[in-house]
């Protein structure tokens, strides 16, 4: 049943397809790696039947922000292990950040990532190109060559582009290419130097140097002004502050070409959760206050924030089991993203399920230009799908499918679990288990 040529009938699922404005019970037939029928005409015939009573079927999830660590830190994650974690989490496409070693700042590294991803064959991997050479913020990388190699998003993520002139030319130069996106890690470096967590009551009490929310807002305000000046297309990575939501909302009202993402961990946790110095909750940008978290939730619900992205950032156990200020920031997220959103946003009624799927699949696919993903689900399209049980309860525990275990949700009780992930017609995850 695992070959892409096999026929599969997903029977009796609630099909939610935000891009196709569909939310109905339906059968869906897959044949030859593509959707053969939805609803009428979706008959079993010689297809293997996948019973989906009580389950939800949607376009496969799409992550705009994944760190795969290969090349360079294969002990933390490889393109294959990251792809496997993505499939386990219901993702059929992920966007691999450029801060590898060597940095993905040229077409050769991009092609290597693409080749390794194709060999793994568990999901589509879209490499992100660096904006500047070696992520140093000084000299533009060869954006055009990377566009030719298939890159659609450029980012120095991990770093803000500190030099406004360089960002200006990046955004302006990128307008030479169709729909190329400059994704910024908005954070003024001079305001966060040495900072370990959100600056506020908790950082002062815990004796940890702070990263003020204004560092993000100052950089974002600058970036929006430069987007306005250049006409470039700006994507704001991992928004964390209420003030940033206001800035993005105004920019969108004005008609700027701007999109934004938020991570599941910023939607769930706050700096109050850091009182035990749990390094799995040390992330960049830092977890902020409940007011910020609530603003992020509202911004996601009203569409100011387009996308939920994982910022999947694997780290070695020994790196995270270190002193807080010596531990690198980041949490893995591919395997828990859907459940975190279902548990903390959908179940409490803060976010309609269809909007959650839009933010986890359709919207990121649009920004990424991943036309094979995110719906609308139409006959003839590649069958990139996820089926999940919205009511299944489980505890996030090590070992994870990812090579790393630094999960902010480690030990958390979650609702909603991926049952099947279908990538190009193949069940890469079936009944919750990897198929290869």
């Amino acid at each position, binding site marked *: 049943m695992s070959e892409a040529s096999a026929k599969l009938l997903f029977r009796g699922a609630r099909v939610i397809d935000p891009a196709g404005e569909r939310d109905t019970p339906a059968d869906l037939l897959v044949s030859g790696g593509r959707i053969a029928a939805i609803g009428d005409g979706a008959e079993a015939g010689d297809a293997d039947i996948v019973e989906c009573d009580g389950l939800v079927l949607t376009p496969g999830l799409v992550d705009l922000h994944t760190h795969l660590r290969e090349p360079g830190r294969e002990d933390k994650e490889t393109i294959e292990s990251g792809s496997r974690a993505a499939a386990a989490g219901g993702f059929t496409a992920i966007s691999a950040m450029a801060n590898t070693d060597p940095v993905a700042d040229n077409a050769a590294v991009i092609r290597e990532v693409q080749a390794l991803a194709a060999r793994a064959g568990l999901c589509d991997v879209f490499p992100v190109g660096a904006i500047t050479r070696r992520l140093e913020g000084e000299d533009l990388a060869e954006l055009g060559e990377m566009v030719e190699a298939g890159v659609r998003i450029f980012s120095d993520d991990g770093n803000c582009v500190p030099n406004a002139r360089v960002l200006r030319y990046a955004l302006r130069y990128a307008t030479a290419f169709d729909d190329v996106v400059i994704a910024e890690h908005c954070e003024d470096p001079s305001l966060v130097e040495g900072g370990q967590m959100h600056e506020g009551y908790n950082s*002062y*009490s815990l*004796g*940890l*140097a702070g990263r003020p929310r204004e560092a993000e807002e100052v950089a974002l305000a600058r970036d929006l002004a430069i987007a306005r000046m250049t006409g470039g297309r700006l994507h704001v990575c991992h928004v964390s502050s209420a003030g940033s939501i206001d800035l993005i909302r105004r920019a969108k009202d004005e008609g700027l070409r701007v999109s934004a993402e938020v991570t599941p961990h910023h939607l769930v946790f706050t700096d109050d959760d850091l009182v035990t*110095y749990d390094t799995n909750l040390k992330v960049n940008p830092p977890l902020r206050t409940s007011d910020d978290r609530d603003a992020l939730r509202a911004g996601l619900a009203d569409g100011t924030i387009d996308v939920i992205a994982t910022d999947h950032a694997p780290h070695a156990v020994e790196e995270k089991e270190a002193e807080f200020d010596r531990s690198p920031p980041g949490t893995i997220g591919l395997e828990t993203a859907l459940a975190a959103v279902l548990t903390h946003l959908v179940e409490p009624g803060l976010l309609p399920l269809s909007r959650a799927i839009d933010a986890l699949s359709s919207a990121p696919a649009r920004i990424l230009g991943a036309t094979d993903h995110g719906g609308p689900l139409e006959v003839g399209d590649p069958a990139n799908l996820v089926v999940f049980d919205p009511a299944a309860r489980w505890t996030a525990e090590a070992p994870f499918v990812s090579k790393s275990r630094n999960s902010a949700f480690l030990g958390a009780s979650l609702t909603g679990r991926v049952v099947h992930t279908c990538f190009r017609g193949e069940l890469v995850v079936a009944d919750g288990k990897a198929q290869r």
Partner: protein
Amino acid sequence: MKRHLLSMHDLTPEDVVRVLDTAESFREVGTRVIKKVPALRGRTVVNLFYENSTRTRISFELAAKRLSADVINFTTSGSSVSKGESLKDTALTLQAMGADAVVIRHSSSGSPYQLTKWLQGSVLNAGDGTHEHPTQALLDLYTMREKLGRLEGLNVAIVGDVLHSRVARSLSFGLVKMGADVTLIGPPTLIPPDAPAWGVHVSSDIDAVLPKLDVCYMLRVQRERQRQQFFPSVREYARLFGLTRERVDALPEGCVIMHPGPMNRGVEIDSDVADLPQAVIEEQVTNGIAVRMSLLYLLLGGSGPDQLEAAGPNDEATRGADDV
């Protein structure tokens, strides 16, 4: 009391009183010819010092030795740590060696919390980064109570670099817990903006606060902060916030001057001020040993002064040969 002492938040006001009362009993031990009791005989205390601090380490070492515990000093220079061993692996080694208590000093805030995940014994925070230094706060509370007879209602100013001071944090939390009135004084760049949420007052005008004080507590100011532009110059800092002879004259009679040491004479405190009779800086050091004895004793199984009567310094039956 809890098993560990990581923060002043771990102690209730009743716990603080118990620690200070127990220290009272132990202070007498330090005045004997043979300064030793058998209360922790057979127990092992490890001083795990990732950061140099001769005075705190010696104070803990003396405290443990006066209780007859076996003491191991583990400093990072020349040890496996300098060869790259992690905090966790060091903790597991100490665990394997049967440490009953680990006293940790570390430049990273929160490291004592992490240690508790890997150790079964008690962890005592001897200063972690810019977070807390609870035993310093307790010896300061002890000294204030000794000198002024009470803690509740005292007017205490803590002057200087509160932002980076673990002493100021622990002392503020401890004083507020015990009902004292605390004012933090310093340049606004060195006072946490959210400090009023700790239950303290904040001021940048030392001269306005001095006349009402029972305790004037001066913090060490690092010259490094000037290079980081927290204030324009050491000279200006000394002029605006240093405890000069003139400022001492503005203090009410009976006001006590304190400092956690080591002092920058001529910066936060004038040299002759540090030597005045109302400056009790050396007594703070002496009291530190008794307070740390009290803590080790209580955390490692003693329940308070009542039990101390039975098993502590006055118990002939448990007194070892060393005490003779």
